[in-house]
């Protein structure tokens, strides 16, 4: 993992470590160019020890504009040059991902037809693309060459051709999307071959990588692992490395899935590819590799020559540096939540991380590092993620920190959330925060309820991170009705009966986030479960993390009854009465218990008694872990007058 990786036709390019920071959408761009924010973002990972940085995929031709801030190769020369310079200063290799999204793009920005091998509409947008004419194909191939030439002359070490997710090259290779009758259809390899030959020539000896979909998860017509090996037999002469990925138009989320998919799902695929390729071609393993152990095992076992750890380095840019320093346990874990690092969303959110909110904000956020000029005694009330991050930051800067929490274990709301089905990894961020705090000398006082007197008695600063309380109920409750909050159900999930009465459970989910869904999945194996949502789709807010369609599928496979477009109006001892949000038509759903997964309220009684004190996270307004960590950090930095 820490050894160098030689790459290139003559092996003249040497990555200082075998850890890749792979290409991904960031929305950091300025129009269609790379920005200063991009440069700082990549430079930070290079400084942290990344061996290879591959920049966000740039469109090789103006006919491709898949999302508003998608870089365009022709507008990228200056940005690429700055990124190359910043990475080279750390010895890191910098490559440009170049691609064309084809029929998986968008016509909204270019206002031109989508281009694709055949007129197969994308499943999500349902927009019919134009079947490319001969000159369209020629222009796309030439675009790949132009982009490669530009990248190399900007000083980058080479390029990576995207034939993975969101790629025209894959669309040509696949029977799902290529139904042409001409030479590009009878030989589906032809387009990829022309692209790779053109890029190889244009790169003039610089590194050429290939990110190839080796399993479209659609064996009836898609690329299978066997077919991928045949494709690679033809293409590998033009590549110095290959990244084996999976997923296609029917499985976009499978390429970079969240925690519902176990990490390392592509390792067998990677090993097969590596076994089939000559040793000259390096293989990079991809697929939710977020743990140092797994990365090391992957490399030692010979499944790959390098590992792509993109999300892991969004969560902790210093991952490689910490491993090199012999402190892998101090690496902030990626918990595969996809909540803020997944940014393919029309709102153009900037890439970030729920555990490391400075990611993506390298040019704006005040660094945590440094020593306080005036160390104080700091009392943090509440050991949830906000409180722990406040404590960690304060301790890091030399303050003497004491955390009090009424629970026996620190972690707050994250512990409950991690009890939800498929969300177990969330606990790791709480564990990491607590262990970092301990390492930095933070004292914990657990299982203790704090009173106003304790606050008055404290000599020093106080940060209130008391989290949230149950929310208002805007429905009628009849006597004898059994109503629980999602929080309480999750907290009791480890009990054998889950603390719930027998009989059907109805979950009222006005939020549409991961909580309601994960409670439904948690309970569905053992009982009849209904999910009531005001939306047209259950878990409507999961679109951004990529779990939207998958969650719907899992719920239906688990037999959860979905009551869409419905609002909870009354809970009786035996039923939830719901009404259609548009028509008002009412219906009864049998329920022994109703679980309210609705919005919560700040637990701010302590703050109200001491309104001059600083507070952070849910105690201000219950939101997600991202805001809790961000505000906890800001509260600690504010002790030294450092404001973001």
């Amino acid at each position, binding site marked *: 993992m820490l050894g160098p990786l030689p790459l290139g036709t003559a092996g003249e390019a040497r990555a200082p470590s075998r850890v890749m920071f792979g290409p991904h959408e960031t929305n950091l761009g300025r129009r269609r160019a790379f920005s200063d924010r991009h440069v700082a973002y990549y430079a930070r990972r290079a400084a942290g020890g990344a061996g290879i940085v591959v920049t966000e995929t740039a469109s090789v031709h103006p006919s491709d504009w898949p999302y508003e801030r998608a870089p365009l190769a022709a507008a990228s020369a200056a940005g690429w040059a700055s990124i190359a310079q910043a990475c080279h200063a750390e010895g890191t290799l910098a490559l440009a991902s170049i691609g064309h999204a084809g029929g998986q793009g968008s016509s909204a920005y270019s*206002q031109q037809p989508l281009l694709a091998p055949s007129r197969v509409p994308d499943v999500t947008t349902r927009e019919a693309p134009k079947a490319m004419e001969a000159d369209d194909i020629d222009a796309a191939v030439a675009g790949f060459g132009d982009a490669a030439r530009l990248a190399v002359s900007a000083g980058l070490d080479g390029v990576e051709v995207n034939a993975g997710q969101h790629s025209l090259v894959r669309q040509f290779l696949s029977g799902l999307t290529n139904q042409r009758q001409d030479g590009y259809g009878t030989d589906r390899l032809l387009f990829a071959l022309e692209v790779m030959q053109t890029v190889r020539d244009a790169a003039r000896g610089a590194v050429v990588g290939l990110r190839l979909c080796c399993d479209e998860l659609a064996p009836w017509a898609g690329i299978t692992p066997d077919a991928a090996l045949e494709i690679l037999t033809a293409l590998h002469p033009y590549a110095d490395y290959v990244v084996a990925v999976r997923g296609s138009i029917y499985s976009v989320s499978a390429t970079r899935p969240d925690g519902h998919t176990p990490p390392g799902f592509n390792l067998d695929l990677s090993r097969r590819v590596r076994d089939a390729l000559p040793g000259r071609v390096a293989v990079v393993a991809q697929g939710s590799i977020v743990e140092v152990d797994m990365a090391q095992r992957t490399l030692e076992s010979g499944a790959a020559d390098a590992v792509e750890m993109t999300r892991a380095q969004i969560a902790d840019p210093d991952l490689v540096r910490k491993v090199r320093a012999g402190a892998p346990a101090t690496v902030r874990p990626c918990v595969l939540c996809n909540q803020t690092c997944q940014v393919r969303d029309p709102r153009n959110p900037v890439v970030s991380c729920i555990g490391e909110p400075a990611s993506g*904000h390298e040019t704006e956020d005040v660094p945590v590092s440094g020593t306080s000029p005036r160390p104080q005694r700091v009392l943090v009330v509440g050991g949830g993620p906000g409180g722990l991050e406040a404590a960690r930051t304060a301790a890091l800067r030399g303050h003497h920190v004491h955390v009090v929490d009424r629970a026996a274990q620190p972690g707050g709301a994250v512990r409950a959330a991690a009890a939800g089905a498929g969300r177990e990894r969330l606990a790791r961020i709480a564990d990491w925060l607590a262990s970092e705090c301990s390492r930095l000398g933070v004292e914990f006082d657990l299982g203790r309820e704090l009173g106003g007197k304790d606050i008055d008695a404290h000599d020093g600063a106080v940060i209130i991170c008391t989290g949230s309380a149950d929310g208002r109920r805007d429905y009628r409750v009849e006597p004898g009705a059994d109503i629980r909050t999602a929080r309480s159900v999750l907290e009791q999930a480890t009990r054998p009966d889950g603390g719930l009465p027998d009989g059907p459970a109805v979950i009222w989910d006005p939020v549409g986030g991961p909580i309601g869904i994960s409670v439904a999945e948690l309970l569905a194996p053992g009982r009849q479960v209904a999910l009531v949502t005001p939306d*047209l789709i259950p878990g409507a807010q999961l679109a951004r993390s990529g779990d939207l369609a998958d969650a*719907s599928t899992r719920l239906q496979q688990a037999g959860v009854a979905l009551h869409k477009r419905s609002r909870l109006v009354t809970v009786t001892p035996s039923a939830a009465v719901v009404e259609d949000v548009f028509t008002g038509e009412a219906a009864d759903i049998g329920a022994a218990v109703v679980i309210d997964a609705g919005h919560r309220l700040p637990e701010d009684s302590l703050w109200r008694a001491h309104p001059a004190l600083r507070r952070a996270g849910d105690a*201000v307004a219950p939101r997600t872990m991202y805001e809790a960590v961000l505000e906890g950090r800001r509260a600690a930095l504010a002790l030294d007058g450092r404001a973001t």
Partner: protein
Amino acid sequence: MKAAGRYRYLFSPLRIGPVVLRNRIVFAAHLTNYAEDGHPTEQHAAYYEARARGGAGLIVTEEHSVHPTDWPYEKLIHGFDESVIPGYQRITAAVHRHGTPILAQINHNGGQASGMYSRLPVWAASPVADPLFREVAKEVDHAEIAEIVAGYAKTAGHCVQGGFDGIELQCSHSSIVRGFLSPATNLRDDEYGGDLQRRARILLEIVAAVREAIGPGRALGVRLCGDELINGGTTIDDAVEVARMVEATGHVDYINTSIGVATSTLYMIEASMHIPPGYALFIPSAIRKAVELPVVGVGRFKDPLQAERALAEGHCDMIGVVRGQIADADFAAKARSGHADDIRLCLSCNQECVGRMGLNRWLGCIENPRTGRESVPLPRPARSRRKVMVVGAGPAGLQAAIAAAGCGHDVTVHERADTAGGQVRLASTVPSRAEFGDLVRNQLAECARLRVTIRYGSDIDAAAVRAAAPDTVIVATGAAAERPYWAPPDAGQVVDIRQVLDGSVAPQGRVIVVDEIGFHHATSVAELLADRGAQVEVVTPGMVVGQDLGITLDMENWCVRAAAKGIVQTTDCLVTGVGPGSVTLMHHPTGRTRQTDADWVVCAVPAAPAEQLYLELKALGQPGVRRAGDCVAPRRAHAAVIEGQRAGEAL
């Protein structure tokens, strides 16, 4: 009759405080997503200038935020930051060149936001989560209220420096002020919550602070929500009372009105063609009876006669015409000069204006390719007049003809059918979609003005093109229905929506409508058939029937109408086979299949481009051949219009 006679009220001047309007037509505030980095752009200036040149009586800009805690969507103008002033000056100078007054709307969206861009808690009266953004707000304390009020005053000052003639306070559909006014979102028990007088306190403080900031020489308006259309929300009696309080301050020059909550009942704010025009007039009408101040009425006014009638009936003193002027910047001038028939009427389709806003894209118009592109120079007129042949009189062909003829070329359109409009004409035969047909009406009127020749019943093949020897041929032959793979050729009960719409089949009994497009195609035909007595089920492989109806704000009313008509909506299912009197559906999340009775199966599925003529001409080496619209790839009308325009201009 002269225009002045036809419109007794619409073109009479009106004074609002220190500002005199030449007519009653207001280009009211609406989002454009033209801002960049929080600043107004050249495009803003060009956009508003086009409407000023086109005769609007008053322009009110899109909202400017008064405080950094307010950043609900990416391309919001940060009015609290003084660096906006040069952009303001560019806008006001451009608009004032045409003698038109322009006001700046300033606002704080309160809890109708998230912290996604600001990375700050959202501020509101009470910790209530907004129904769209779903983020619990931070309850503001008194110091924060004072900060908000000061933010309004500061931003108003920037607007004065920027040359605006006054300020409008958005206290209506997406505002912290409405949040305070509404019992649904204000749960406070301090001086800013409780009875209406207390809930209105922040508004009155803002009014006083803004008036002080702008002085007596500028106009100040307040836009109020007359009915939130939500449970426990503000209704008209409260709104009238608030209008009285606003008038009593003596600081305000006019009242604007609106209906609904942007993050909950937006479909009633920017109503599509399914809501009758003038639906919100009860609001200005009630307020106007209670106050002396001039009142603005809004609500799908797209025709000058409608606007005139609302004024004549005394509902209001001014009329907001937003989409009408998005579709035709010269709306007012054309009406005034007696050429109302030349107005490119808005369709109220919401596809490229409202529809693009929700998706964080710049505002456009389905039938006006200039909208959103006003700052891009127009193509130069042709140096030599060329003979242009257009094949196909659908939206792409007609727009190509308009663009080419507009550049001075000699254009003939050949249409195989005996009428123009292609798929748009068919789509608009569904009674509730009739206004969509105005697209064709508008294009034909423009063709007539530009002396485009249209030959109907003219089926053109490659030989005919070569015989006519045009300098340029634009192929806009549309697309043909394609039978899905699962329908055997002898399954006569499987038909395309086009066959239903053109009357060649009349499905009855139990009808399955297959939605693989996700827009009005399936749902409008389902309604048509249900109205004729069929028992209809719409089946889609997607997660939602008519998945894109939400973008145009048609989802809510589709669901209500579908329920009333007994239409069943089935999601996540593919048709896998057709038998006599039945279809087989596969529920793809579980893989389970079921058979269901079906006398007819009506398909709303992707069509096949009719590209033969184009490909033949290209193969023959015909010079100057282009294609546009569905014959490139079958899409929606806006793509046809844009490509037609581009093809026509590119000569």
